[in-house]
């Protein structure tokens, strides 16, 4: 194992001239995006396109008594109207890609049937000559609603007597419960010298990509060809889901995602409006476009994270952890979205800590709110907040240094690989090294012994840590099959040589900011030997790319790099054979160097790639026994999931009078294994940290309990960080290659979302230790700190804890 400390991007050296893994390359994606020449879905404008608008339920829970669309249909310019009955006749309910194990299938149609279960659920859709006219027509649709009792609080929804959202399918709002664990944590808790526990409330936030969802559908009945441009992370899975919902063959559908303006997990699968646009287009035989407006985005895309965790850590008097348990309720909203509620809180239950007795139980709960979907981190920021807050509580209880307590319990490099209580296998890493680097960088030793007294400006300084692991990729297709997931763990690419001497790469992964085109070209350049500039990546079109999985779960590079490597090696071997025939040499004596194949010992004996590729493409001048053509497709599944890891440290200054605080420094030490493009990796970590700070500090979707309305569903009322809001961030890396992935790569997309909440809360609690402040709720606002200081509850008491129900789970404990 090698560990390399690499300075942060500040010392980025200029672009190099040839593609190699580990170097900064100017991005393939940038020129078009910088020139306004990207092709986002709303930029697609077929001739004779019509426009769709969607009417939505204004109530959190309501029966649809009657819909009268006659006035709307009379409006000039209106071409087609759909209601729930039309949709029921023509389609199947929307499928779920990553089901909750043990959950019944909910009849989620593209338009509400008898009952809508959240504000914003589609009820009627109209297509007209312009969006303006379509919206005018919606004003003329007369819908009679009968409001039904609603419930928006996740714990209240589980109470007996709560209004049940789907009484035809379920007796309560518990969609399903899943448990995992090993050992006997209850016995360890009874024996322990100390048990710390808490109820941790995680806020409802949303991924908020800057490009909203959008779809353009075009149907040619004679050709049986439905072309669907859509803003998605998973074009091949969209094609599968649309075929199922629309009762078409997959071969009838081409899904295209050209440029995607951010996804972050939200754009994972089919939404009602995708199905509606297709239905209208098929009925009208004209292209139909719908671009979500931001008000719709806040109400019918997906939200994320909302959950209540009852977490316990038991330890002996020296601080050795004996057991960790988490019983938690996650909100899933009114329907099961394509990716359901977050499943990784259970997988990384114990973070980087050594514990053999552990238990996680997830209760997936329906409420009258917008459905919850995947969002960068997918359960990991939530559980990290719980266990890292409790690690500091434990340190205070035992009067131990929180850094030493963490170090004592962290798995060591020698202990890895190691299976955690919920079955996850941590592959490799040096967790303590990251912790020590973070402690040193933030100045912990100097701070530790100082009294927590106010500075001249009245503020008190505190330091907090959050250590974490991050699951990246999937363990295996077998793992996914056991949980009913509708996709594989592999990634697929096709490489094809062209007559210009270049290589085209076709991938079903769409381009949404993660720099896949750049990184894919780097791998091909590295493995094949061709120049980086001579590789072109074509992304996101199901009619051109091999069937794949898609861009989510920090999995693209760890899976795709293997497929790229295999395909590039196959192509290189044939290229050398063809060149050897041409040069009257032996393949072993040749090498590919940029635009030519040449003799290793005599560079003057060479032939251009353009020539060699030309012989293959025409079949003219190839050796006997060789087939014409120069193309390779590879499907690659990594050996296991790779676990990234690290520690973050925050330095804050808190005003003990008002609760106001400022994050003066934030250090992130992180390991992503072998780095393909260091600048891109830093960009991914920084971007995810920004989202992590948003969720930790300023973002929260609030529902009014009485009316069931989303009260801040607009950009004016919801506060993602701006350029002026973020604290100074320092990035440090280690680089321990993973043994389970090609090149030793670990995923990197999500990790930054994990530690900000816990690190900042721990820092505030450190500053205010003399006041006995223990924060347990996100977001962390000055008001929350002030309430904690003044002993004022926010009215959300900790009445009765969620207790394990290991013996009588509905599904017997299938796992995450």
């Amino acid at each position, binding site marked *: 194992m090698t560990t390399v400390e690499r300075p942060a991007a500040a010392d980025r050296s200029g672009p190099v001239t040839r593609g190699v893994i580990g170097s900064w390359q100017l991005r393939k994606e940038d020129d078009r995006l910088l020139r306004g020449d990207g092709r986002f879905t709303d930029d697609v404008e077929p001739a004779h396109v019509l426009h769709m608008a969607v009417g939505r339920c204004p109530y959190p829970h309501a029966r649809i008594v009657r819909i009268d669309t006659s006035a709307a249909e009379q409006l000039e310019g209106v071409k087609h109207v759909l209601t729930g009955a039309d949709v029921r006749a023509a389609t199947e309910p929307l499928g779920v890609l990553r089901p909750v194990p043990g959950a019944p299938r909910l009849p989620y149609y593209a338009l509400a049937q008898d009952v809508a279960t959240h504000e914003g659920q589609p009820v009627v859709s109209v297509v007209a000559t312009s969006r303006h006219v379509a919206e005018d027509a919606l004003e003329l649709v007369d819908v009679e609603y009968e409001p039904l009792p609603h419930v928006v609080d996740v714990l209240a929804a589980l109470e007996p007597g709560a209004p049940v959202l789907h009484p035809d399918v379920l007796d309560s709002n518990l969609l399903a419960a899943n448990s995992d664990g090993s050992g006997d944590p209850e016995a360890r808790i009874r024996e322990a010298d100390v048990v710390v526990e808490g109820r941790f409330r995680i806020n409802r936030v949303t991924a908020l990509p*800057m490009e909203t969802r959008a779809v353009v559908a075009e149907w040619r009945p004679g050709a049986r060809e439905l072309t669907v441009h859509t803003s998605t992370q998973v074009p091949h899975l969209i094609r599968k889901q649309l075929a199922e919902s629309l009762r078409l063959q997959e071969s009838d559908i081409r899904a295209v995602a050209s440029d995607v*303006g951010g996804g972050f997990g939200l754009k994972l699968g089919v939404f009602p409006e995708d199905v509606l646009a297709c239905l209208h287009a098929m009925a009208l035989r004209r292209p139909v476009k719908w671009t979500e*407006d931001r008000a719709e985005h806040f109400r019918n895309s997906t939200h994320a994270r909302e959950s209540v965790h009852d977490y316990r850590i038991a330890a002996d008097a020296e601080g050795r952890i004996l057991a960790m348990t988490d019983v938690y309720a996650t909100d899933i909203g009114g329907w099961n979205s394509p990716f359901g509620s977050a499943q990784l809180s259970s997988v990384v239950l114990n973070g980087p800590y050594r514990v053999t007795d552990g238990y996680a139980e997830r209760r997936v709960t329906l409420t009258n709110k917008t459905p919850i979907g995947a969002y960068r981190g997918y359960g990991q920021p939530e559980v990290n907040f719980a266990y890292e807050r409790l690690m500091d509580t434990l340190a205070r209880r035992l009067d131990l240094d929180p850094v030493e307590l963490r170090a004592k319990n962290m798995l060591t490099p020698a202990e890895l690989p190691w299976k955690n209580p919920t079955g996850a296998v941590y592959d490799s890493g040096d967790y303590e090294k990251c912790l020590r680097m973070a402690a040193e960088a933030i100045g912990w030793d100097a701070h530790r012994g100082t009294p927590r007294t106010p500075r001249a400006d009245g503020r008190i300084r505190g330091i907090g840590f959050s250590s974490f692991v991050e699951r990246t990729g999937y363990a295996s297709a077998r793992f996914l099959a056991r949980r009913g997931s509708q996709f594989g763990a592999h990634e697929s690419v096709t490489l094809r040589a062209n007559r210009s001497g270049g290589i085209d790469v076709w991938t079903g992964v769409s381009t949404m*900011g*993660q720099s896949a085109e750049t990184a894919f070209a780097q791998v091909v350049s590295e493995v094949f030997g061709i120049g980086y500039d001579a590789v072109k990546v074509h992304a996101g079109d199901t009619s051109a790319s091999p069937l794949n999985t898609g861009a989510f779960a920090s999995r693209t590079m760890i899976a795709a790099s293997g497929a790229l490597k295999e395909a590039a090696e196959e192509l290189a071997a044939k290229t050398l054979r063809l060149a050897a025939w041409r040069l009257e040499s032996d393949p072993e004596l040749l090498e590919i160097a940029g635009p030519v194949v040449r003799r290793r010992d005599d560079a003057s004996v060479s032939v251009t790639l353009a020539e060699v590729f030309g012989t293959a493409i025409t079949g003219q001048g190839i050796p006997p026994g060789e087939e014409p053509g120069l193309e390779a497709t590879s499907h690659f599944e990594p050996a296991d999931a790779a676990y990234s890891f690290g520690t973050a440290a925050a330095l804050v200054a808190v005003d003990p009078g008002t609760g106001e605080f400022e994050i003066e420094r934030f250090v992130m030490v992180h390991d992503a294994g072998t780095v393909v493009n260091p600048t891109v990796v830093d960009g991914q970590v*920084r971007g995810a940290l920004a989202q992590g700070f948003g969720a930790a500090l300023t973002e929260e979707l609030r529902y009014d309990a009485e009316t069931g309305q989303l009260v801040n569903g607009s950009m004016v009322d919801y506060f993602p960080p*701006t*350029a002026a809001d973020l604290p100074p961030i320092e990035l440090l890396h280690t680089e321990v290659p993973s043994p389970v992935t090609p090149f030793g790569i670990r995923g990197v997309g999500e990790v930054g979302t994990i530690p900000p909440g816990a690190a900042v809360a721990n820092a505030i609690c450190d500053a205010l230790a003399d006041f006995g402040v223990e924060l347990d709720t996100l977001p962390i606002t000055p008001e929350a700190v002030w309430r904690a200081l003044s002993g004022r509850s926010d009215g959300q008491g900790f009445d009765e804890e969620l207790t394990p129900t290991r013996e009588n789970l509905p599904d017997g404990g299938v796992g995450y």
Partner: protein
Amino acid sequence: MTAPEPLVELTTTVNGEVVTATVPARLHVADFLRQRLGLTGTHVGCEQGSCGMCTVVVDGEAVKSCLMLACQLDGRNVQTVESLAVDDELNPLQQCFKEQHALQCGFCTPGMLMTATALAHQGGHPSREEIREEIAGVLCRCTGYENIVTAIERYFAESVERPADEAAASLPGGAR
């Protein structure tokens, strides 16, 4: 039945070209640029003037084009992201964004570029803090902003080194 949509005539200059059009009174500038002129580099993110995706330069100032009606463009001079690059060459500001990895998904990038372009019209050399404040009207969900600030800072630093007339020529509009 509603009455026919009221229409308005306008004459404006967009990226140096005089445009005359008849548009619905309720059409906003972002939709006008995208749907009538095919200038799809200007993006729409919220239609509330909050996210900044649709920022363009009107008479030298950064404007959120979703909050301005197309008819208000009459007699004015508009610059969009499409005006920045000349032929196959990115302009120096775009080049700084590329070299500093100041974009990921690229959806906010036109708004950032046009905000910085308007800032350049004002002259002077803003500090990092001032750049942060200036671009705070444009949201980016991908980058965490650091590299965007660096790119704009670098652009201003390099424009000191360029002769003044060359720096001005690298801006859109003007002579072209």
